[in-house]
Structure formats: C-alpha cells, structure tokens
C-alpha cells in the first residue's frame, strides 16, 4: 500500500513539480483556445459547404469531413510533423499541432453544426426570405441561433473531446500539460506527476462532463 502511495500520490514530488506542471497547463490552455476557436469557425464553414445546393462545393466538403473523421488525430499529427519536412516544409510542433487538430476538429464540429442546421424547420428560412432578408442574413439571424441552441450539448461534449485531444501534442514534444508531467516522471522515476496531470484534467473537465449529462437528461425528459 505504501509503495502504491509513494509511486502514485507522492505529495512532496507533486509539490516540487507543480511549477513545471502549471507552465504546461498554461500551454494546454493556450493550445485549447487556438484549436477550439479555429475548429468552431472551420467547422461552421465546412458544415455550410456540406449543406450547399452546389455540388462542386458540397462534394469536397463531404470528402473532407469523412477523411478527417476516419483518420486518427495522432496519425494526422505525426504525418504533418514528421512527414512534411520530407517535402521540404519545416514546421514547428505548435504549428503542426494546430494544423492537425484544426483539420480533425473542423470535421467533427462540422457534423455537429450540420445536425443543428438540419434540425431547424424549413419554414424558418422561408419566413425569413419572404421578408426580404438575404440568404446570409437569414442564416445569421434566424437559422444559426436556433441551430446552435439545438445542438449546444453536442458542441459542448465535442469541446471536451478537443481539450482531451490536446494531450496528444505531447507526442511531438510540445510542452503542454501531459508532456511536462511525463518529463517530470522520467526525471523523478515516479508516476505522481502523471497523476497530478490527471487530477488537473479532472478539475478542468469534470464540471463540463456533468453539464453535458444534465443537458442530455433535460433533452430526454
């Protein structure tokens, strides 16, 4: 029992590695901000393309979402980080991570938006167009607010996945939370820093996970 505690919940090691971990946390949060905002924006564009009546626009968007839903994000990340230099494109870990997750998240957010837009009755768009609003105005003021409200739980749960996803950045030596924890582990020969990282993720995400569950129950009721 004592060995288990020493190995996983060593308080003094946790305290000693705290500054390093906090630095990692800051990087994680910065990465999250970039990746979530880009994903939300890119996903919206892809979703609109997905629903376009124009085939030349719709087809590439569908192919885009399908490919990036099928590719594991880590594979995409390694491909971009280790593969692109072979083509003469040098790329920093941060850029590689942001690019890989942008492609991955856009396709996931796009699917959520698409479901949301489809959930808005057609009459809403017609009513808006009948009052002389342009397609863009009808979309911005009438369709999208309702679409987003209808899929808010899914947007939130996807965002939780994005935060968890940023931990993969450690695989390309980007110094975020998990990378810092793993560094600390290899220096201290002790798993407590990893457990500390897990606790930080829990503090960050548990409230959001609860919120998603509450949303889902309300929708089911």
């Amino acid at each position, binding site marked *: 029992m004592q060995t288990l505690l020493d190995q996983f919940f060593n308080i003094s090691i946790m305290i000693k590695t705290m500054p390093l971990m906090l630095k990692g946390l800051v990087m994680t949060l910065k990465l999250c901000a970039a990746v979530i905002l880009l994903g939300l924006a890119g996903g919206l564009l892809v979703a609109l393309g997905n629903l376009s009546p124009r085939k030349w626009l719709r087809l590439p968007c569908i192919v885009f979402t399908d490919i990036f839903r099928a590719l594991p994000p880590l594979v995409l990340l390694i491909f971009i980080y280790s593969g692109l230099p072979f083509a003469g494109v040098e790329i920093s870990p941060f850029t590689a991570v942001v690019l890989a997750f942008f492609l991955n998240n856009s396709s996931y957010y796009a699917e959520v938006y698409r479901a949301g837009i489809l959930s808005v*009755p057609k*009459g*809403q768009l*017609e*009513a*808006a*167009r*009948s*009052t*002389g*609003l*342009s*397609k863009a*105005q009808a979309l911005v*003021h*009438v369709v999208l*607010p*309702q679409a987003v*409200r209808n899929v808010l739980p899914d947007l939130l749960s996807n965002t939780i996945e994005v935060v968890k996803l940023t931990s993969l950045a450690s695989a390309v030596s980007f110094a975020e939370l998990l990378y810092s924890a793993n560094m600390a582990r290899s220096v201290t020969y002790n798993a407590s820093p990893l457990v500390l990282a897990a606790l930080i993720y829990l503090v960050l995400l548990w409230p959001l996970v609860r919120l998603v569950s509450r949303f889902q129950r309300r929708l089911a009721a």
Partner: protein
Amino acid sequence: MTNRPMLEIVALEKRFGTNTILKGIDLKVSEGELVFVIGPSGSGKSTMLRCCNRLEEPSGGDIIVNGRNIMSGTTADLNRMRLQVGMVFQGFHLYPHMTVLDNVTLAQRKALKRSRPEADARAMDMLENVGLAHKAKAYPSELSGGQQQRVAIARALALDPKVMLFDEPTSALDPELVGSVLKVMKDLRDKGMTMLVVSHEMGFARETADRVVFMDGGVIVEEGTPDEIFGAPKAERTRAFLARVKN
C-alpha cells in the same frame, strides 16, 4: 378601387421532375383587391402562391409585381422585391428565439436598414393594429396560435408591402381562434391592401372577397365574384368541390 394591376401572374408553370403542378396560370390582382383562391388539396394553389415571391422557383412564366417582372434581375433585386410582397404562412413560422418585437423588427433593420427606434416604433404600430402591443416582450411559445399568426401578419406588414399573400392562414388554428385572425385580415382589406388569399374559409370569402378563383389540377377552372362562384358555379368541377366542402 383602381384597375391598376398590382400583381400579375403570366403563364406560370411549375414542374417537379415529370410531375406538372401548375399548367399555365394567368391571374391579375388589382390594387386594393382581395382575391380568394379555393380548390381541393393538391390543386397547386399553395404552389402558385409560393411562386409569387419565388420561395418556389417557377419552371416558366412571369410574375409581375407593381409593374416589375421579378423573374429577371439580380439576387439583390429579388430580396428588394420580397420586401414588397408580404407572406403569411399556415404554420406562422415566428422565430422562436426572438421576442415578438424582435420578430417584427428583424427584417426592418436588416433588409430595410431602418434604425432600431424607427423599427421599434413601426413594429409597435403594427402590433397595435393586430391587438397585440401588450405582448411585444413575450416569446412566440407564450402565445396562442391565433396570436402567433397575428404577429406573423404584423411582421409582414411592418415592411410596407404592396401585396400580401396568405397561405392557408387559419388552417393550423383551433376553431375558436380563427375569428381573430380573419378580423385582422378584414381590417387590412378595408384599409385598401392588395391581397391574394389561399384558404378554406368559404364564409369569409363570401363576405370579403372581390373575386374568387377556383383551381383544380394545376389550372384555373373558373373565376368570378363570390356570388357567381358560390351562387351559380358554371363548371362541373367547381360545383362538385363546393358540394363536398359544404357537407
């Protein structure tokens, strides 16, 4: 009533695939006139109405509003034209995420570029006309069906349309709520609005319509004054339809 045509439908055709819904419709609605369209379901009357502001894209023919052909011109022209043609839907289609007031001001602000105070003032006038000024801050879900439909009428009127299209405006309402909507429509007619109405309210048609049009199978079978159509229909199909709805 002047004879200037406000809305002209010329040789209108509409096909869905191989299915022809409208087979060459010609109809003129003069300024200040209320034209009532009746006919069995599937006769194409709603489709015709929806072609009048190009919610449905006509397969052929022309739609002329206030002397301008809306089948030509740019997208911007189309949006401008739609401001002149108000439409009221069977299902109301109020925006559920906005208050009644915002429902009525949205297009005023975004399409007509009116200022917020100007749009609000205009909206309150219109809500006053339909007897719902006190509900301005409510959300659509807090209103009865009849109230929602009156707000939808106010939303269309606030844009100062030249013509109002009504697509079965009372069909989705409980019987006791129909009267309030019909009263608003009658007031509107008395103020001289040009109106094209698709509806099954035969009593209302008899009382208020200037002209009644009977459609069946994608064509206009017969048109005339309410007395002519309801009193002495000429076509056999009209007689059969009227006999059916009376019972």
